[in-house]
């Protein structure tokens, strides 16, 4: 498939994620949108990796170009997992103190 389709899809997913982070009130939904952004980037990385490998394979059957993209996806997934665990821990503490997961409730930084 032409690479543009992957790019458009990843762009759409990423934009939805950004808008979701900016707009949504519920903290858990915000986290889901962050995961969405990360997954969009993962998709794009895998797509580009395949593209570059395909080009290099057509020229030389033994090349291993383009593996770096897929390698980086692993890293991103690990980081995402760690970040989710920490973030959810924070949300649980927040809920315990204020009995809500409303982001707008966190305006104690105002003064």
């Amino acid at each position: 498939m032409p690479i543009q389709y992957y790019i458009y899809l990843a762009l759409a997913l990423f934009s939805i994620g950004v808008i979701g982070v900016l707009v949504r009130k519920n903290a858990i939904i915000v986290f889901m949108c962050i995961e969405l952004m990360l997954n969009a980037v993962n998709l794009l990385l895998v797509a580009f990796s395949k593209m570059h490998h395909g080009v290099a394979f057509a020229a030389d059957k033994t090349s291993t170009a383009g593996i770096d993209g897929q390698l980086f996806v692993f890293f991103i997934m690990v980081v995402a997992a760690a970040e989710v665990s920490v973030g959810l821990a924070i949300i649980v503490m927040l809920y315990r103190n204020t009995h809500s997961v409303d982001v707008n409730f966190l305006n104690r930084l105002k003064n």
Partner: protein
Amino acid sequence: MSKLVYLIPLFPLIGFLINGLGRKSLSKSAIGVIGSGAILASFVTSLVLFFEVKNHGAIPVQQLFTFIDVQTLKIAFAFQVDQLSSLFLLIITGIGFLIHLYSTAYMHEEEPQHFGRYFAYLNLFVFSMLLLVLGANYVIMFIGWEGVGLCSYLLIGYWFKNDNYNYAAKKAFVMNRIGDLGFLLAVFWLIVRLGTVNYADVFAAANHLSSFDITAITILLFVGAMGKSAQIPLYTWLPDAMAGPTPVSALIHAATMVTAGIYMIARSNVLYSMSHVTMNLVAIIGLVTALFAATIAIKQNDIKKVLAYSTVSQLGYMFLGLGVGAYTGSVFHVMTHAFFKALLFLGAGSVIHAMHHEQDIRNMGGLKKKLPITHITFLIGCIAISGIPPFSGFFSKDEILAAAYAHSPIYWGVGVATAGLTAFYMFRLYATTFLGTFRGTHDQEHHLHESPSAMTIPLIVLAALSVLGGLIGVPEILGGHHELHHFLSPVLTTEQHHEIEHGTEFMLMGISVALAAIAIAVAILRYSKKPEMADATGFGKVLANKWYVDELYDAIVVKPLNAMAVFFKNIIEKSGIDGVVNGVGKFVSYGSRQMRLLQSGQVNAYVLMMVLAMVVMLLIWLQEGFIVKTFVKLFN
């Protein structure tokens, strides 16, 4: 021996520092001793130097250090003691010492710290005046010139709690400054044309100046003299300056500061004699001032104001003398006038002291029995100023009048008329104050007593000088040798010697003495029994109101200046400059208030800002080349 010159101004300077800085901790007697002692030391040193000059001629110029050193212009801080300055030194320190002595008794009611302030200012004044006459160039003279103006302001406003006195002090200072501008312009002109301000160099090179230059420089210097020596039109400060203590009036406004203008012109006689225009100007202004002030004096009722207008009038005489080339005569009159005017002022102070600060002569009268020494000395002063021989005033005034006659009989006529007026108003003052019956309150009458010896001794000394001081200038036709003329001739090189027939000169003398005697007789007869109590009417009212000159100046100069100042304050200062400066502050606080609103505490807002920033960074990264190219084109 010549190094002693440095000591002369040094003593009063030290006296000023000690009394000024220590005024809160010294006792009044200590302050008095230090202040008077400093001037006495200067007097003794001046006496030594005077005899040195008399016997061996002028002392070479003593240079302390280079005051101004700019490329080719070198102005030295140097002292010049020659015949003219040594004579003035004696006058300043001698009469200064007597007045310091007098002040220790006159000002005894003051608190110690104000007493100290007074003596500090007096010493500073003497220091400045000494600098003025000792200077070897116009710049040092100007330092002294400004210094005496400053001290005049400080001393007139000595009783600073009274607003009227402060106003008088300001008026004196501002009018002085107007004159100073003329003086400064003359100095600048000299520097531009000749590159030097030393007396010796300027007078030697005077031939190289064009006549326009000479006339301009001398007229500008004379403007300075007009302000300092109270000639028309810058004279109105002197009567108002009577707000200061009486010894101050005696020292500054009779004997020394106001004579600075005459000293300056006598010193610059080489320049003045080269310009007929200026000489005529000086003579005419002097003559008009003399007559004008004399007419005002005949209707004044404050004892000090009469003497103040008398001073203005006598200064007019001195300028008349300078204007007709009788430099020696003017300097002679400076000397004799210093004696009898200081005597008259100190005598007036004695009267004021006895009358417990009453100054209106209509409330006095018959004081001759209660204040004998004051009475006799005041009478001697009045006779001297009226020009009755053989008292000193006769010789000096007569010399000026003879020179005026040689120049133009009209000058002489106006001068003699003024002399008659002088005798008239002085004896009006004398008769109203000392003769007749006492017109004051009972309380004042009980407190009348002769002043302490610290006040009467200076009176006696000055009276003796007023009687004998003329003997150094007895003209040849009366059998004298006019020693003063011979003494001053090395400095007053361009003196014009008038040739009048002996017969004419005797007639001139006779007329002026007769006129004075008649005026005295009329005044005494008119005023001793029944003094002028009512307010003046008609033309007398114009005279009593000083020809309304003050009101004229007020309307022409003072009110427009005040209006301009108010305009500057409200429009430019308040709205303009303050607006800009405060506006910057307001702008900063407005900006910071708006910035504070960014910190809402809303997490959403912060995330939005992060996203926007990243978008902007992305755009810049993508379009870097284009952005750099635009900036380069803009700034080139």
